[in-house]
């Protein structure tokens, strides 16, 4: 393959040479064809030692290696792009590819369409998928209600998107690093984050790992490799790229996954992240949950192109669109993307099509901008939980009795965690002042003392008894 204007020497891992854009592409550059999928990427020859990879010294000549310029050739010589000349004026139509198709494994009734795509997971694994999705759903319903009753300040549900969380989380290794946006609680739940800690964060009580500093649903867990969520959208995207670069240098076979919605994909940070990940050859998966709405803004007001997946090829990135409500499709795509991302040190873009059944948050009433009929369609006729249940019942893995007793049990465990969290005190107000820097500074220390003196003097005006001392 001609390597025009790019570095031809291989990296430390045995990775196939990458094409310069425009050279020898297929007609639909964004599609992963079945031949691509079957092509074995060379198994990584990475050494297993914990040292950092020292790549070879590059001479300045090799760095600027390119074909010698030859103006007698009727081929473009531009450093910026190769491809052929064309002598008639024609604008490329967007969507001339007629939209990137949606990969799925099951139909809406949970039947496997193409048996060779069935990941054939064990009954235990599939039951676990189902239980995690339904437990998340139960927790969502109880915490949403608790906000309505004034017990917690705010909540965001995950209704309809449980398949995107569980399918992708299951396809990762436990030490892969997760950067999320805010609607990925199922990933954390799949990894084993206990109900008590979900509740602790929402209640901002003294058990919260985040020390009560953030609004509900801003979860994080160092043990489970889930980077703490922040409210600004898409900021995690370039961060995920940097983390992936660092993990690549560490050479310990870890990947990064970065979740975001189709709305956040409009942010400049998303463009930055996509471009950096491709140019810097980072082992990560961009996972876009396209759920149809960014608060009240529907997708036709968010973008005019063919969704998010169609942007991938523009950055030189392998991309796929999947049925996000099909947990097996999500699982298959993520699993393959992860394998290749690490083996080949390149980013993958997965656009999981789904639907946000719930409101954006407890501060939103979506009946203001969409019809009840639309919501009901997704809730009743194309839901990741019911599709998986049909798959299970078709194999006699799950009965009505199982369903009834599981629902009852999961509700009970959620309620118990909820009641425990309610009773717990809030963290010591001293924690208002720590962790601004690694160390306490003299100025903050003075402010802290000043606050406590003030509280002492005016204590009847402050809710001191709700907090640990």
């Amino acid at each position, binding site marked *: 393959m001609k390597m025009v204007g790019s570095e031809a020497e291989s990296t430390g891992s045995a990775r196939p040479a990458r094409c310069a854009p425009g050279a020898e592409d297929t007609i639909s550059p964004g599609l992963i064809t079945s031949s691509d999928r079957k092509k074995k990427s060379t198994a990584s020859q990475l050494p297993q030692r914990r040292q950092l990879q020292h790549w070879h010294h*590059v001479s300045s000549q090799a*760095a600027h290696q390119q074909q010698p310029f030859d103006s007698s050739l009727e081929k473009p010589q531009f450093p910026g792009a190769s491809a052929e000349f064309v002598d008639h004026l024609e604008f490329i139509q967007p969507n001339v590819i007629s939209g990137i198709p949606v990969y799925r494994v099951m139909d809406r009734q949970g039947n496997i369409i193409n048996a060779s795509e069935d990941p054939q997971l064990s009954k235990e694994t599939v039951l676990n998928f189902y239980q995690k999705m339904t437990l998340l759903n139960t927790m969502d319903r109880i915490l949403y209600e608790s906000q309505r009753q004034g017990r917690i300040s705010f909540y965001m549900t995950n209704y309809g998107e449980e398949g995107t969380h569980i399918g992708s989380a299951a396809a990762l290794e436990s030490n892969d690093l997760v950067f999320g946006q805010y609607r990925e609680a199922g990933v954390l739940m799949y990894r084993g984050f206990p109900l008590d800690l979900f509740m602790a964060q929402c209640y901002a009580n003294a058990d919260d790992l985040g020390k009560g500093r953030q609004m509900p649903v801003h979860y994080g867990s160092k043990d489970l490799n889930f980077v*703490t969520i922040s409210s600004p959208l898409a900021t995690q995207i370039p961060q995920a790229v940097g983390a992936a670069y660092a*993990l690549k240098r*560490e050479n310990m076979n870890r990947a990064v996954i970065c979740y975001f919605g189709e709305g956040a994909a409009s942010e400049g*940070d998303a463009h*930055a992240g996509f471009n950096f990940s491709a140019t810097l050859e980072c082992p990560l998966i961009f996972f876009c949950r396209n759920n149809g709405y960014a608060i009240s803004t529907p997708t036709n007001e968010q973008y005019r192109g063919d969704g998010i997946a169609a942007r991938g090829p523009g950055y030189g990135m392998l991309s796929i669109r999947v049925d996000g409500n099909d947990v097996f499709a999500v699982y298959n795509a993520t699993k393959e993307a992860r394998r290749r991302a690490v083996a080949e040190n390149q980013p993958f873009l997965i656009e999981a099509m789904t639907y946000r059944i719930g409101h954006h948050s407890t501060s939103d009433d979506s009946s203001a901008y969409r019809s009840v009929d639309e919501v009901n369609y997704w809730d009743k006729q194309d839901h990741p939980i019911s599709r998986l249940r049909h798959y299970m019942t078709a194999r006699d893995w799950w009965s009505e009795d199982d369903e009834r007793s599981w629902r009852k049990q999961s509700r009970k465990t959620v309620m118990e965690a909820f009641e425990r969290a309610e009773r717990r005190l809030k963290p010591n107000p001293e924690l208002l002042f720590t962790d601004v820097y690694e160390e306490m500074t003299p100025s903050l220390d003075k402010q802290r003392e000043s606050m406590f003196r003030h509280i002492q003097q005016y204590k009847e005006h402050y809710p001191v008894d709700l907090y640990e001392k």
Partner: protein
Amino acid sequence: MAAAARVFIRGAHATLSVPGAGKQSSARSALLKLSPGCSSRLKTQQRHAAHFTFQPEPVTTQYGPTQKMNLFQSITSALDNTLASDPTAVIFGEDVAFGGVFRCTVGLRDKYGKDRVFNTPLCEQGIVGFGIGAAVAGATAIAEIQFADYIFPAFDQIVNEAAKYRYRSGNLFDCGNLTIRAPWGCVGHGSLYHSQSPEAFFAHCPGIKIVIPRGPLEAKGLLLSCIADNNPCLFFEPKILYRAAVEQVPVDSYTIPLSQAEVLQEGSDVTLVAWGTQIHVLKEVANMAQEKLGVSCEVIDLRTILPWDTETICKSVVKTGRLLISHEAPVTGGFAAEISSTVQEECFLNLEAPIARVCGYDTPFPHIFEPFYIPDKWKCFEAIKRMINY
């Protein structure tokens, strides 16, 4: 960012050197045939000398053998030491691979490899976001922003993300391994977008540190401290000093503490506070005040803007009773306002005169009007006179 050239004629008061002068110069002078009435050296075309004289630090042996280095070389030296001792360290930004537009990273890519010193696409929010993520994942991330004037696309990542990473996660995660470097301050002809001093925007942001050195010796030690510090740091490098400032700088690693102001010369009548290039202006002002007014000035280099050393400044003002703070950035909301406010709280009864701020005007940084804009030694001198006669 300015698609227009970010090309820089190096050096504040270097004479215009034409590349390839020699056999081409006759061709060039043929291009520029002046009419008889036009003198080759118009009064309006004369360059002004720089507004300061760089005053080098005395040679020190406390950190081991030294070598003559200018400011950009001292930066390179710090980065070299870092890449040698810390295998996780990486340096990235626009154009750093070939050595950087100010030559701060010359030789490092060849020495340490293309995976450790590399170009990024032209995107400041990406550079800083990437740096945060690399730091979170355990790498020592050193990001370069080509000019501090272009740091603003990264403002969200710095203020909403980097600064708050540790706090918001309850110390589960942090990006303390991140250092962001950027050329800073006036350069004689930089105009709006190659002269800014944006420290005040960031001073309002708890969780980051901001450090500004006055010369090569300080720069290397402070940069190494920033890199070692477990908090995200902004390190602004006075670009006018990159070539003009030459000192004997230790070859090995050493650190200079952060959040400690330095009293450069003691005095009894007025405290003068600044940072970066302006320190050299104030040193000259102190001499002028002594010679012409018999006024003894105490000169303090703040060095770390955030968190800043209130104790040293206040202790000095308690002694002298008068304070002058000077910076190039516009006066309204500039960092002098913060110092002034704190000092009047802590030292009110000690003050003999209102605190003086000699700063840039509340305008964008102008091109041709730079000599009138900058807080030069005459403006500082005049302010001291007013304070003494208050």
